């Protein structure tokens, strides 16, 4: 019998009642009396010098309250970067100023030039059209390699060039070179990890409100981490102390990473509301989102794998160009380094691994973390090169991977991290079983009978989640701690509110977190609610990204609940006149071991708040505890994925016929929600592999600026449910957090893109087309061209 309560129960998501009935409260649903609206006039050129901005005529238009330009932000801080990367020469990365509104130059299409605040959005937009901006267009820097050529146009005139940093990590060059020199076989591959637009269903929104009487600001914003925004905007941009600044992220309709970062529009609305003493609201249009939400990925890499005569991996070397865009977004610098280089060993015991990354400024929208953040880029390179090596050597790609698996744990990789636990053969076994590998030949024959090519793609992955041990990331350049926090407030009648630093924007925390507390206390989930998203209500936690919520914030909640149990046992011991050591808690009852004495959970909680009969000399009344939890290590979810595709040789169109994921997430609290996370992640990964393509032309114009040209995956692009299996039955619990959980939010998006591309290449090569690689998205046109070139 599957459990229906506590840890392991597939409880339906309680938050869906409001999401599915239109009763959610998103930022755009919040309106403040007398609010004004802002419209941002954005650059339509990729690179240009601002000669002048004349707002006189526009200011006189109906409804205009005030027009702001970069000049209004002199002396105000720029948007900060949260991670300082040190390059291979020991120098700090280049950190150009990132003003809230452009100052002197515009650096990408969408860069805000001026902000019109008016009584209505329509009036603001009308006035924006009347602003006279004289911009002298400059050559645009778009291609990363060209950006690094001597004499290339500079995105930032005050920097020496367009190189943000040149980073090297892992095994030393001499050792790696020697391993390559001694190799029996070397496989090399050049590839691009395509730039993506996150496209959460809810566009970004910011509403800044100022209470002059109390000198307090409130920002309502679409964020994954309200406390991070309060810290960055308060301390670095606007200089508002924490006790005068409240940041609220209410219901948020999807984030996928792009709502982690601190954006200009948030700072603007807060700043402007203080200047005009009136609330200011901004709601992004979808078109604005394409040119102002941080983009994802965009790496160009060369990867080389060395093997000995027995096909053991002996060395790996990568050389990556990572696009930063025009400015450094909040975590842009760490994504291609510490979230990418540290995962380059993958699931394999390759003794020498060296990662080289050049981060480059270009006249494009800033690029930052997007579901998986660095780990998909690492996995894609590694698993593509392994697949290519298998084909070149004529060996079975499953066998080649198995032969090189890490099999004993803990395992310290050459790229700094230590995997605590895992069993890669177990997930591979599970994947092979579910995929029915022996049946592939017959399925291929059936496809061929229909005139289609069929391919099988295999992929393994590992990721680092549960971000992150603060002391470690501090050494690596993080400018923030990455612990989390929870307060468990038990009320007098026994109901509980848990205030958490994690933020739920689709993940289902409101359902899952109570399951954990309910399990620990033996009470019903309906007695427990989660409070999240409001800096004035929750402890200073760091929010949700990097599959960290349950592993880090959930652990804080466990620790706080343990404190509650300890105190409650003291109270129960007093009530039953027994020794605290003899008190047991089971099914919401405290009992004295070996006796039939017991008191109920509610009796104890009531005693805490009505302390008539209470050990006041020993403990305080009340029952509320807070815990901060800083993880000892990352967690390392891993898995084996497989997919079968059909390729139409006449059109190049790829369809996914069968997909299997076998993941090891450690312990699983709500299997249904985990499966939903993996389904969604795989859909996004398939989107990246087959459809999504954020492209610029050579002038820095965004070609895929709307859904007319940017292809999102739809249900019909995914395999039928009958041929789509997500499995998480292989479980090696995390060894260092109290729940033994690893995190499941990003796995699907990390594991699926190489699986799909490997399958397409298997289909083509098995049919005699010698195609080494196709860049994502593997569109019909690209497949057909690869087959016919």
């Amino acid at each position, binding site marked *: 019998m599957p459990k229906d309560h506590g840890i392991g129960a597939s409880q339906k998501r309680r938050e869906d009642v409001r999401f599915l009935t239109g009763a959610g409260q998103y930022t755009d649903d919040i309106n403040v009396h007398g609010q004004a609206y802002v419209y941002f006039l954005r650059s339509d050129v990729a690179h240009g010098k601002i000669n002048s901005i004349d707002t006189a005529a526009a200011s006189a238009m109906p409804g205009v309250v005030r027009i702001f330009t970069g000049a209004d932000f002199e002396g105000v801080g720029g948007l900060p970067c949260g991670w300082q990367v040190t390059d291979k020469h020991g120098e700090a990365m280049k950190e150009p100023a990132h003003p809230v509104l452009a100052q002197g130059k515009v650096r990408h299409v969408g860069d805000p030039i001026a902000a019109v605040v008016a009584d209505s959005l*329509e009036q603001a*937009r009308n006035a924006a059209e009347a602003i006279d901006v004289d911009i002298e267009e400059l050559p645009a820097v778009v291609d990363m390699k060209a950006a690094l050529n001597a004499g290339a146009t500079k995105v930032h005139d005050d920097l020496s060039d367009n190189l943000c940093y040149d980073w090297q990590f892992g095994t030393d060059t001499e050792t790696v070179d020697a391993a390559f020199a001694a190799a029996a076989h070397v496989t090399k591959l050049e590839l691009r990890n395509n730039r993506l637009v996150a496209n959460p269903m809810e566009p970004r929104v910011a509403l800044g409100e100022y209470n002059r009487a109390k000198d307090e600001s409130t920002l309502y914003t679409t964020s994954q981490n309200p406390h991070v925004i309060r810290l960055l905007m308060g301390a670095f941009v606007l200089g508002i102390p924490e006790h005068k600044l409240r940041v609220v992220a209410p219901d948020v309709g999807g984030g996928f990473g792009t709502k982690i970062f601190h954006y200009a529009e948030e700072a603007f609305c807060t700043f402007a509301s203080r200047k005009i003493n009136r609330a200011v609201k901004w709601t992004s249009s979808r*078109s604005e989102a394409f040119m102002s939400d941080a983009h994802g990925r965009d790496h160009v890499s060369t990867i080389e794998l060395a093997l000995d005569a027995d096909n053991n991996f002996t060395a790996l070397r990568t050389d990556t160009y990572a696009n930063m865009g025009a400015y450094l977004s909040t975590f842009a610098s760490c994504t291609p380094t510490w979230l990418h280089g540290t995962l380059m060993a993958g699931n394999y015991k390759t003794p020498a691994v060296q990662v080289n990354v050049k981060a480059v400024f270009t006249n494009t929208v800033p690029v930052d973390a997007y579901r998986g953040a660095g780990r998909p880029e690492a996995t894609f390179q590694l698993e593509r090169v392994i697949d290519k090596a298998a084909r070149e050597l004529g060996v079975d790609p499953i066998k080649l991977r198995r032969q090189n698996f890490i099999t004993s744990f803990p395992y310290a990789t050459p790229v700094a991290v230590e995997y605590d636990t895992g069993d890669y053969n177990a997930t591979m076994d599970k994947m092979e079983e579910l995929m029915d590998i022996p049946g592939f030949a017959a399925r291929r024959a059936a496809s061929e009978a229909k005139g289609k090519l069929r391919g099988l793609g295999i992929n393994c992955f590992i990721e680092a989640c549960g971000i992150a041990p603060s002391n470690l990331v501090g050494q690596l350049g993080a400018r923030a701690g990455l612990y989390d926090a929870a307060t468990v407030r038990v009320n007098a009648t026994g109901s509980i509110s848990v205030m958490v630093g994690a933020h739920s924007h689709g993940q289902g925390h409101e359902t899952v977190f109570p399951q954990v507390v309910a399990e620990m206390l033996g009470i019903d989930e309906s007695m427990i609610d989660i409070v999240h998203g409001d800096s004035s209500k929750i402890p200073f936690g760091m929010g949700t990204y990097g599959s960290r919520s349950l592993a880090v914030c959930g652990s804080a909640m466990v620790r706080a609940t343990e404190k509650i149990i300890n105190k409650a046992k003291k109270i129960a011991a007093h009530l039953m006149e027994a020794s605290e050591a003899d008190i047991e808690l089971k099914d919401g009852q405290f009992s004295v071991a070996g006796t039939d004495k017991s008191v109920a959970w509610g009796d104890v909680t009531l005693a805490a708040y009505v302390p008539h009969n209470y050990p006041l000399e020993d403990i305080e009344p009340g029952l509320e505890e807070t815990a901060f939890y800083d993880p000892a290590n990352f967690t390392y979810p891993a898995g084996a994925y497989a997919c079968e595709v059909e390729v139409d040789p*006449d*059109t*190049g*169109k790829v369809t996914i016929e069968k997909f299997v994921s076998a993941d090891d997430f450690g312990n699983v609290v709500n299997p249904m929600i985990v499966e939903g996370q993996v389904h969604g992640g795989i859909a996004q990964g398939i989107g990246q592999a*087959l*459809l999504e*393509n954020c*492209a610029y032309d050579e002038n820095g114009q965004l*070609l*895929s600026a709307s*859904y*007319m*040209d*940017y*292809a*999102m995956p739809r249900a019909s692009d995914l395999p039928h449910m009958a041929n789509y299996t997500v499995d998480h039955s292989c479980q090696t619990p995390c060894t260092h957090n109290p729940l033994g959980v690893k995190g499941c939010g990003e796995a699907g998006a990390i594991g699926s893109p190489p699986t799909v591309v490997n399958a397409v290449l298997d289909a083509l090569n098995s049919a005699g087309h010698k195609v080494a690689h196709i860049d994502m998205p593997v*569109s*019909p*046109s690209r497949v*057909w*061209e690869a087959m*016919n070139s």
Partner: protein
Amino acid sequence: MYAFDIERPTTVAEAVAALKDEDAQALSGGQTLIPTLKQRLASPSKLVSLSGIAETKGVSADGGTVTVGGGTTHAAVAAGASAYPALAALAGGIGDPAVRNRGTIGGSVANNDPAACYPAAVLGSGATVVTNAREIAADDYFQGMFTTALDEGEIITAVKFPVPEKAAYIKFEQPASRFALVGVFVAKYADGVRVAVTGASEEGVFRWTEAEAALSGNFSAGALDGLSVSADGMISDLHGTGAYRAHLVAVLTKRAVAAAG
């Protein structure tokens, strides 16, 4: 959107009169025009809604001709053009249900988007575009992308399709917009075969006359073996090169012939 006035005539005559105002524009299903207005790419001072004109709605079949009123939605054609199954199927494959329940044949044919589906059916059937003022043969009507023979203020009231012996439309979707990356409409009439191609050419919808000649003698996919269209003048963009589109024209024409039976 900029501010505009709106009129809601109930007859073609009233609509034509209302459109005489400078800067007035016809509004039908709004599936193309409303997004354009929202992006402030057009600024008509007055919109003349055609949605309330009953005489331009509906599908009728009579003596080998299917007549579709200019204000008939794609959904209504999909459901009602059973006398011309290839046309009904084409209409049923446009956009999504919301688009099909609002968008109209008149709007689509007036707009003449180079990737739209209806132009292929109109040209491929040798249909007649009927307006408030005249009847225009399909071969004279389409004049390059977004360009037609319509005069200022002229309203499409109906499109008359001669029903062929056999026909089929095959659309290869552009992955983002799901308009036609290339779409081919093939129709076999007693006096010959017509092949119309949408999505592919920088000149908009066009007839592939070599394929028509080959198929008129032998209506089978095999008759097209060795035939190809030139990549010159084909659209080349993010979603496919001109060479790829030219290749698809040949592939889809064969498939359309096979589907027509």
